[in-house]
């Protein structure tokens, strides 16, 4: 005991307090660790603060503090009249707002544009909010019904016939083209060295054409009969409804399971009838507003929504074609995709504007807006194809094999098992493509269409509003609109991505 007692050390006084460690929590600690933890960082923080000071402060000053808020023409926005260095000239935007949104759309008809905007917003909400039910129905409404309704709302005009007349007309065109090709071959055979071969092929093609002509004769005869009657649209509509419903009934499984298909077909046709009646399509519809009067945000939205709606089916078809086991289809899809992805959009628009009219029959003129839309659809379709292909590659092979083992056909396997999973995988990528599409719509202003940017540029040349700050004000306004749309879409894509990866989070 004594040993231990003598050798042990017993402290009699308390150790002095050590200084508190450097604070790393709270605001002060955060500032210290994230902003001022080393000489380099202090320097960088000061540099960053200076950078912000010299960009944010002048912008805010320009947009809000020094801005002119009311006035009738450029004199209100001149420094000598306002008495201070003038920033943004907002009365200019107020004066040009109709032009920036509607272009030259007639003032009396602008309610149609507003109605279309409202309609698209209403139809888009159930599609975008994941919690709402009936995704199939809302997708059908937005991707099929809305474009048609929007077309008749924005452009106006009515219809002269319905499904039957259109089918008959298309088949007739096709038939005439086939017979024409045969005739050309027959003519060639008179001079060519391989005359017999050409003659045989040519006669064969003419024969096929003639056979088709007689095959579709009942259809054309019926069409002529309907057109001669007074109520051509409604008679045609009724016949189409009956035929399509019957086909749906039979394909849906006949007496056993076909009732559901029949019911949905009838409901669809009733809805169509209501729309036709409401918009008066059967007798002329709304007054026609030609597309060269369209402009501003309207054109931007029309081009981007059409691009979105048309590029997705093209993309899916090309992606499936690229994964097909049939060589010719695969090669064609690869060539098609790589071609459109390899060229800049502006050359595609030039192609659509200058070359496409040459490819079509001479009596067949295509509207300038439609030409640009075709170019954009092909271009975006190729990009979407690569997105969809990524999704298809992410689906395990076992899914398709299991479906095949259950006896599903290729079409059913693809449309019921593989595609729904693949598309869900790539929603963020698809939305990102939509963002670039939305940004790219500004390019149509180069081929003489007045979208938001084109209208803005046109409004700069108005001498009534030419002031030193006009250009900056206009760009600020258009920039805010573009930013809201693109930023909104990118946030939505992040949200969906987050939701899709919910099972991976821990």
């Amino acid at each position: 005991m004594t040993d231990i007692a003598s050798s042990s050390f017993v402290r009699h006084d308390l150790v002095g307090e050590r200084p508190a460690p450097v604070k790393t929590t709270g605001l002060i600690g955060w500032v210290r660790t994230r902003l001022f933890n080393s000489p380099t960082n202090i320097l960088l923080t000061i540099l960053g603060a200076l950078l912000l000071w010299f960009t944010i402060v002048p912008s805010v000053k320009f947009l809000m503090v020094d801005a002119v808020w009311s006035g009738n023409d450029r004199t209100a926005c001149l420094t000598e009249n306002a008495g201070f260095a003038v920033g943004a000239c907002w009365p200019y935007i107020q004066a040009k707002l109709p032009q920036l949104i509607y272009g030259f759309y007639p003032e009396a008809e602008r309610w149609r544009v507003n109605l279309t905007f409202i309609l698209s917003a209403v139809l888009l909400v159930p599609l975008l909010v994941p919690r709402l039910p009936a995704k199939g129905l809302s997708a059908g409404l937005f991707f099929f019904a809305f474009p048609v309704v929007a077309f008749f709302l924005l452009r106006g005009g009515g219809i002269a016939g319905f499904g039957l007349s259109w089918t008959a007309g298309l088949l007739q065109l096709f038939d005439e083209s086939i017979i024409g090709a045969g005739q050309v071959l027959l003519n060639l055979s008179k001079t060519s060295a391989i005359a017999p071969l050409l003659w045989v092929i040519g006669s064969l093609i003419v024969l096929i054409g003639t056979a088709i002509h007689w095959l579709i004769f009942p259809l054309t005869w019926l069409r002529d009969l309907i057109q001669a009657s007074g109520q051509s649209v409604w008679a045609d509509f009724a016949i189409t409804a009956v035929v399509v419903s019957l086909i749906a009934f039979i394909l849906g499984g006949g007496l056993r399971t076909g009732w559901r298909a029949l019911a949905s077909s009838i409901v669809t046709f009733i809805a169509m009838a209501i729309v036709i009646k409401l918009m008066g399509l059967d007798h002329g519809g709304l007054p026609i507003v030609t597309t060269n009067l369209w402009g501003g945000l309207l054109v931007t939205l029309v081009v981007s929504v059409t691009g979105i709606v048309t590029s997705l089916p093209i993309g899916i078809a090309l992606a499936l074609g690229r994964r097909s086991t049939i060589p010719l289809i695969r090669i064609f899809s690869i060539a098609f995709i790589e071609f459109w992805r390899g060229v800049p959009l502006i050359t595609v628009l030039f192609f659509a504007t200058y070359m496409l009219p040459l490819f079509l029959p001479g009596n067949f003129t295509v509207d300038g807006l439609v030409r640009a839309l075709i170019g954009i659809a092909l271009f975006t379709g190729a990009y979407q194809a690569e997105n969809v292909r990524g999704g298809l590659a992410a689906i395990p092979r076992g899914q398709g094999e299991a479906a095949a083992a259950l006896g599903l056909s290729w079409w059913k396997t693809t449309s019921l098992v593989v595609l729904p999973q693949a598309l869900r995988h790539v929603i963020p990528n698809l939305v990102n493509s939509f963002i670039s599409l939305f940004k790219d719509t500004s390019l149509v202003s180069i081929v003489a269409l007045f979208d938001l940017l084109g209208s803005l540029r046109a409004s700069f040349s108005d001498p009534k509003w030419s002031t030193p700050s006009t250009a900056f004000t206009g760009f600020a306004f258009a920039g805010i609109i573009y930013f809201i749309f693109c930023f909104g879409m990118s946030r939505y894509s992040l949200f969906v991505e987050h939701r899709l990866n919910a099972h991976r989070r821990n």
Partner: protein
Amino acid sequence: MSTEARKPPAQIALKIRRILGGKTGWNGVAVQFAFAAVLGWIAYEIVSNTRANLENQHIAAGFGFLRNNAGFDVNQTLISYTGSDTFLRVFVVGLLNTLVVSVVGIFFATVIGFVIALCRLSPNWLLSRIGELYVEVIRNLPLLFQILFWYLAVLAALPNPRQSISLLGIAFVSNRGLVIPRPIGEGGFEAFLAVLAFGIVAALALRFYSRRALFQRGQVIRIWPYVLGLLFGLPLVTMALFGLPFSFEVPQLKGFNFAGGSRIIPEFVALTLALSTYTAAFIAEIVRAGILSVHKGQMEAGSSLGLSRGTTLRLIVVPQAMRVIVPPLTNQYLNLTKNSSLAVAIGYPDLVSVFAGTSLSQTGQAIEIIAMTMGVYLLISLLTSAIMSVYGWRVSRSLGA
């Protein structure tokens, strides 16, 4: 009793089926025939319609127009060009202008992109927020919008040449563009060039030798003092011996414009600014993702081996990040090249602007001109993707080894 092995059934039909129809068999063959027929029909329609339309418009198809006189001027040419040159020359001039703006844009986009990426990765909160703000704003505005903004708003707001902003008294910025001093070769130019070339070759040889020594004998040779001497010391000595290699012709304000120096047109400035800042936002995201993709353990393993932070970054982190960065980075370079075609909106004389724009409206040869223009871009992108697949193949091989 022995039974002879039965002969395998004749496989000719199977083989034909396999060749023609792929895995799908005769169904596939039928589908292909139908598909080929439809394609043939569409092709026939296009050809016959085009022929009829061209006849109606009295346009002669063919590339003969390339030898005709262009008869218009181009305001930026890298090779000598006058209005009396041919359309083929216009094509080359436009192509060179496209390549110049792409190369300059790629250079600046890479520099800005890496700086922004480093900002976003910085532990400094303010800096990373600034990087994020830059990326979000730039990425969510259309490129054409930005080009027009720089051209119509910012550059147009600059003062006229008389009140131009002087940069250190040698370069001048005005609404007529940027005027910079022009180098003029002097007496010592050839000797200077020869010595510089020798220095570069010698420095490369030295580096090759030192790496060989490191890998084969484990011998570390410090070469940077010699390299510095070769690249800077030798040329300086030559300059002292033979006199200055070139002098600069400083632009002077005479009357309403500048005399001397070389002028960079405002279209080029606006296009380069917009293209490089726009692409930089995308490059920044790619670089950030690439660096984040390298596992933290790699850095820790490097430092536990006793490597310094710089060496770890240079030898361990960056090579692994580059593997992730390079393919999308090339894609961005390609995008920048394709986006340079937006020059047509502000009148910078690139390929699309002078060839698919002016030449097309003068000759009306839509098919030939647009096909040539598209062909150039297609060729560039196919070449790039070919190079990238070789790169991918090499990377995967080195990973496998």
